[in-house]
């Protein structure tokens, strides 16, 4: 799943900005959404689009390409958890580059679907008299769940979020000089840009050298991805005006209320589940302690492209702090269970390290269906919870008990109406809304 940045400048002296340097920091803040493929594009006075893409991570990419990073005062960037997932460059009829998070329904394959979308956008910008209105109609017509940002050869930045609003997108600005969009507010913070609010569902915004124009967003309140709150978004972000940190704390509290456990200590599986464990601890009164140390860089293991890399990521992240477990009953809190092998490995280690009982509490409902919008949730036959019930699962991972939140509990913890939350991955054969 990609993280998007759009950076726009106005007014006198705009040519002094080096967009790529600022985008660099924005992408760094978004690397939690994956950083297998990095790409960016800029445009400057000559109206030539410069693009560059390559393998991640973000830092490595910028280090390695120090001398060839495109210069320009407007730009967009993308960091993606997919391999070889770069900006789409359409040359005719209207030259543009496009970054897209999520998936349109123009094709089975996500990459192809994004290309087709970019082509239609190019066509429309070329031929339509009112490109804003036309783009707005386009995202109403083309289904799926996505947010995008595009940069044209005429120094226009077109960005939008389809009416479903599954994928986040936030706007920001600085004074009279800078406008920006980013997948998460944390990226705006890091780029030194003030957050001004979310791109609304069905909203399109066009930045041009003359002005910023937006259409009226759809009144529809959208169908926000609940997995953003559980796992994807960064703790210091706001998603759809809700603080992720608050939500994760409430998830932990809700979990403790609905799925209590005896225990001497609450331990969260880093990183995402730590604030959930914190909420669990606050609600239950069982103290929380750090239980694992990471070796090497912090990677989002679940977003790695191959199973091997995912396991490596997790294993290096989870070296147990033995004294936290020894001769104790442990409440182990994690955000979600995908294939189950991580959890199995972890519980086994804890038991060998002397944990008496291990009660696993998961801060989300069991993942039972893949994501139609491109989040790396594998097909159903790879989802352990889609196939084993809680007792079998507990035996399989060697835990004394395991329980998941229900869909209702999660919804309650997030605090948005049920119809505005996408929970398809938690529902067997679930519908979009």
């Amino acid at each position, binding site marked *: 799943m990609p993280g998007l940045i759009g950076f726009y400048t106005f007014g006198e002296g705009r040519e002094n900005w080096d967009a790529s340097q600022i985008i660099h920091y924005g992408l760094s803040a978004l690397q939690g959404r994956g950083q297998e493929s990095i790409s960016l594009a800029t445009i400057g006075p000559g109206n030539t689009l410069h693009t560059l893409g390559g393998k991640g991570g973000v830092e490595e990419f910028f280090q390695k390409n120090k001398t060839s990073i495109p210069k320009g005062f407007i730009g967009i960037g993308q960091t993606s958890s997919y391999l070889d997932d770069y900006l789409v460059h359409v040359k005719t009829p209207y030259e543009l580059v496009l970054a897209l998070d999520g998936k349109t329904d123009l094709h089975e394959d996500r990459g192809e679907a994004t290309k087709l979308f970019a082509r239609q956008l190019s066509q429309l910008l070329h031929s339509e008299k009112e490109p804003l209105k036309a783009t707005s109609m386009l995202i109403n017509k083309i289904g799926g769940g996505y947010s995008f940002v595009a940069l044209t050869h005429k120094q226009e930045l077109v960005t939008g979020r389809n009416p479903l609003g599954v994928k986040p997108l936030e706007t920001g600005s600085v004074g009279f000089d800078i406008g920006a969009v980013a997948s998460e507010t944390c990226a705006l913070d890091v780029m030194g840009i003030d957050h001004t609010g979310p791109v609304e569902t069905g909203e399109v915004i066009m930045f041009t050298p003359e002005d910023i124009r937006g259409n009226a967003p759809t009144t529809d309140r959208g169908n926000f991805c609940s997995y953003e709150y559980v796992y994807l978004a960064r703790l210091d972000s706001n998603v759809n005006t809700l603080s992720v940190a608050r939500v994760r704390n409430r998830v932990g509290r809700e979990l403790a209320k609905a799925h209590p456990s005896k225990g001497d200590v609450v331990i969260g599986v880093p990183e995402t589940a730590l604030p959930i464990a914190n909420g669990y601890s606050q609600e239950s009164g069982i103290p929380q302690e750090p239980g694992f140390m990471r070796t090497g860089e912090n990677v989002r293991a679940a977003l790695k492209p191959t*199973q*091997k890399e995912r*396991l*490596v990521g997790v*294993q*290096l992240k989870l070296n147990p702090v033995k004294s936290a477990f020894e001769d104790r009953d442990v409440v182990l809190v994690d955000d979600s269970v995908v*294939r*189950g092998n991580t959890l199995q*490995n972890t519980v086994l280690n804890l*038991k*060998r390290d*002397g944990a*008496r009982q291990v009660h696993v509490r998961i801060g989300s409902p069991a993942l039972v269906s893949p994501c139609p919008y491109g989040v790396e949730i*594998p*097909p159903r*036959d*790879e*989802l*352990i919870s889609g*196939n*084993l019930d809680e007792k*079998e699962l507990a*035996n*399989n991972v*060697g835990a*004394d008990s395991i329980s998941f939140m229900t869909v209702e509990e999660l919804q309650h913890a997030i605090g948005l109406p049920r119809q505005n939350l996408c929970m398809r991955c938690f529902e067997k054969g679930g519908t979009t809304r």
Partner: protein
Amino acid sequence: MRVMGVGGGARENAIAWKIGLSDHKPEIFWIAENRNPGIHKICKDNQGELRIGRTTDPKTIVRSARGWGIDMVVVGPEEPGFQGIPDALEKEGIQCIGASQELSVIERSKADLRRLQWENNLPGKLLFRTFKNAREASDYIRKNIETQPWLQNIVIKPARQSGGKGVKLIEDRKIYLHDEKERFKEAYFDSLQASMSAYSDIEDKILVEEKAWGPEYSLQCFTDGKAVLGTPLVQDNKSAHESDSGPETGGMGSISGPDMTLPFITMEEYDKSLKIVEGIVEAIQKKTGKSYHGMVGGQMMLTENEGPTVIEMYSRLGDPEALNMLALLKTDIIDVFQAIVERRLSKLKLEFTNEDAVVVKVVAPNGYPEKRDKAKGHPVQVFDTNIKRNGCYLFWGSADLQEDGQVVTGGSRLLALMAMDHTLPPASARIEKTASSVQLTDGWGLYHRSDIGTEQLLAKRQNTAERVRRLYKHREEQGILGTRMDWVPKIGRVDPSQLLLQEMHGPGKA
């Protein structure tokens, strides 16, 4: 009555010692490949003689036994059993305590033992596969490592007992080290294949089994084919050096007592272990149609999947575990042997002292076990009085008494020191006080493990045992003890036991 023993290690020295203490006052004769000073003395003191000869050669053994007019033979080590010494003696009408060739397969072939357990659905087994060559082994593992997760953590063994080829334990749980582990694993398959190609009598050369984790202990038993009588549990220590580090040895020392079980094994686990050994004796007798009379032992481990589990079987007493057991045995050993040959073991009252804990520590020359030729041929000096003063016993092992009365090292485990006390730590401390009573006069070094029987090592064993116990008890409560069930993405539930049984009975037998 005339008794003859076979074998020249510390275990045989202890058997001879115990026979020498019998009220039947037997005359004691012996055949060994080295002039074991301890056995030599016991034979001389009991109107007998120690003769040097090939202990695996039936002709030599039978000829000596007939020549000496022996009534009963006791076979110490496993190798003579593998070569059919008991069979040869019995054919001549000479009573023998020792598993016959066919029965000793439970030790000779770890692969056959596993098959026996699975064919008879006995408790205490581990998943396994056997392979004809290295290629087959590595192909199988590469192909199935995803669908049979147990293949990630394996033990590689020669499928049949083969001189000097050890066991490799490979945990491949850290996936970032997978390539390293694979390289090591496959190189060892190659080396096993090379050394096992000498044995054309068996198809399987390589055994791969599930790697378990837990405390080990040995349960040695006497059997007459009908009754299997358990003796006190003993724990040997296989690693050469302190804190269980260093290469695998034949055993660096052992502990037992002060009761039938060890401080970290429960009586319930003892009983289960005994049932497991009984089951194997019954199964192998049924399979071969032969009667098992002699000694049999389970080298056990407490594991999270099974509780008490067989690591390997002994078709004899353990060395050094025999020393602990014999030290505790109150019943006259000749009475035990006679009950075995007369098949009336169930009527025998087998008694052990329950006041004493026993610690045995093996003393070995530097170089053992990796560079035995360097460890060989060094002159030994022993200060007997010092050993006796501390209430310790000495049993000679890989040592050779020469014409001039000088004892030299044989390259393997030189001797074992034994002490008894109310609990293990003071017994261990006593041996520490006397360890310097054994020296090599040419300045070559000796070593032993000072940690055996200490509070610290016991606490460590206790700790491991408790952790494993928690795990297997939990499985027992869930009703899944002894079963294995994996869930594999894309495939679903996989029962590796079923897969094993299918392969065992299918065309390409396991």
